[in-house]
């Protein structure tokens, strides 16, 4: 009997065989499909953004309709840093993450109390406020024209961000992979387990001695930093930041990625980003104007039938288990 729990606990965080395969494929992708390097870059950026939302939504149960607040802040922070301080991408990335940790700390105060509905509204409100601030402070942000003239120095002083997007793709993949590894450690740690406890039952979490407010605040800051990193990657690899990064559709899209890929297992954001971007590319090639119709239809079918069932076509015509 003894040692059963020990082995079982060790098994929980074990690396599954498909995990390294998935990452090897990801890193092989830009080399294998050089003409799609820009798209791969975008997928990596949005996967990272979605993973950060999964941390608060899937693992901690904090709903948000304004996660673009941190994405946008990271984008502008990185772009402004490159323009006025230093064009080095890694310094800019760290600066953007630091700025977002401060923003996350301030915003975390707004999500500690209240219900899911108030949290949806408060997070939405914060993103709208930041959007209008960026719009209004055009002397700094370029306003509605966006922040032009962001020129990045070569990565590590060697790799130029060329038009091919190859450097961009590998830069984003490396950053996304590194932060993913950190988050993977985090969700399987005691800290991660207490986050799930807070998600499942806040009253009981408190009753076993978990400082619930402190947990909510710290995970919100971590998610803000990761979202900020995603925003920074986008601004650095496109050399541009516009009001669009704060827009409501960003917050909605990232939620959509998680709905597609599934919450609470970190890979949901990656799966969602890959599926969404590929669908977008295929559909907009067929019907450039009306592709969102098909995305909408897909979403409805996905949610109505359930992900488990949808990826197992052989169960479609069986009797449904009720």
């Amino acid at each position: 009997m003894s040692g059963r729990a020990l082995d079982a606990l060790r098994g929980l965080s074990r690396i599954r065989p498909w995990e390294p395969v998935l990452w090897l494929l990801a890193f092989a992708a830009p080399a294998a499909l050089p003409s799609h390097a820009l798209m791969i870059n975008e997928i990596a950026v949005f996967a990272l953004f979605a993973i950060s939302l999964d941390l608060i939504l899937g693992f901690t149960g904090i709903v948000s309709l304004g996660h673009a607040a941190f994405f946008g802040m990271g984008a502008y922070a990185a772009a402004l840093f490159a323009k006025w301080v230093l064009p080095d991408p890694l310094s800019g990335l760290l600066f953007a993450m630091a700025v977002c940790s401060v923003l996350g700390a301030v915003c975390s105060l707004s999500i500690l109390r209240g219900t899911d509905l108030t949290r949806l509204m408060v997070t939405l409100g914060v993103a709208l406020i930041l959007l209008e601030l960026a719009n209004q402070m055009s002397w700094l942000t370029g306003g509605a024209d966006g922040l032009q003239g962001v020129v990045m120095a070569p990565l590590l002083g060697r790799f130029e961000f060329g038009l091919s997007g190859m450097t961009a793709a590998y830069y984003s993949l490396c950053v996304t992979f590194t932060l993913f590894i950190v988050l993977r450690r985090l969700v399987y740690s005691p800290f991660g387990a207490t986050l799930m406890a807070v998600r499942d039952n806040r009253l009981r979490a408190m009753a076993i001695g978990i400082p619930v407010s402190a947990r909510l605040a710290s995970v919100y800051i971590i998610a803000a930093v990761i979202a900020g990193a995603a925003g920074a990657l986008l601004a650095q690899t496109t050399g541009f930041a516009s009001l669009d990064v704060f827009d409501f559709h960003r917050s909605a899209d990232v939620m959509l990625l998680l709905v597609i890929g599934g919450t609470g297992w970190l890979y949901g954001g990656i799966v969602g980003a890959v599926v969404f971007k590929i669908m977008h590319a295929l559909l907009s090639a067929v019907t450039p104007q009306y592709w969102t119709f098909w995305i909408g239809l897909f979403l409805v079918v996905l949610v109505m039938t359930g992900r488990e069932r949808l990826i197992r076509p052989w169960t479609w015509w069986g009797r449904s288990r009720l």
Partner: protein
Amino acid sequence: MTAWAADTVLAARGLVKCFGGITATDDVTLELKRGARHALIGPNGAGKTTLINLLTGVLEPSAGSISLLGQDISRMAPHQRVQRGLVRTFQINQLFNAMTPLQTLAMAVAQRRGQGARWWTPLGSGRGDIARRCDELLQQFHLADVMHQRTELLAYGKRRLLEIAIALACEPSVLLLDEPVAGVPAGQREELLQTVAALPAEVSVLLIEHDMDLVFSFASRMTVMVNGAVLTEGDPASIANDPRVRAVYLGQGDASAAIGARHG
């Protein structure tokens, strides 16, 4: 300040809780000795659960004070009281539905041992003392065979066992049990009664229960509450012989019969 005996682990003094015009807890004074098996009984609506909520910090008292192991905890947050050894179970299961019993217990033990904020090492890593404690609890609470099932899929009796196992994972010095056998079907009752009887002797227990068989077999001291106030306190024999207690339970078939059966 009243001087309390050195073997008092939990003491509530003059606790009052008002909700608007209603006094739910009316000047309650209660003392729990080290290693006590103390039952708190009273009809529905007597204010027993409100008292638990006051003791654990879910509610803030309108007046009065609470001390744990000689330390005033009246203004402490619920999680800080737990860290000092005051742990409760709930009348209605409060579990972590998407987690397994193993994850739940490992998480609770890790949190109790000050590792709840560790974010780089996996849960249960290290010298294995957390896993060892989980094994003990899983055995003791008959949960070993279901330790990998999602909690929401467990049978009600198992969930009730987990409810108490979580509290013990917090290594309590004072344990407040709020109706542990409530709603457990007859076939699953025995396991639960065994585990309650086998609680470690050094843990002081305050038991709220309507099941008089359990109360009288478990408790060496009893407090009776009516309408938010303490009616009387004493050993089981004197409570069973108290005409006021029997009057309170008059007409409540089972309970009054159970008390009556122990009369004289």
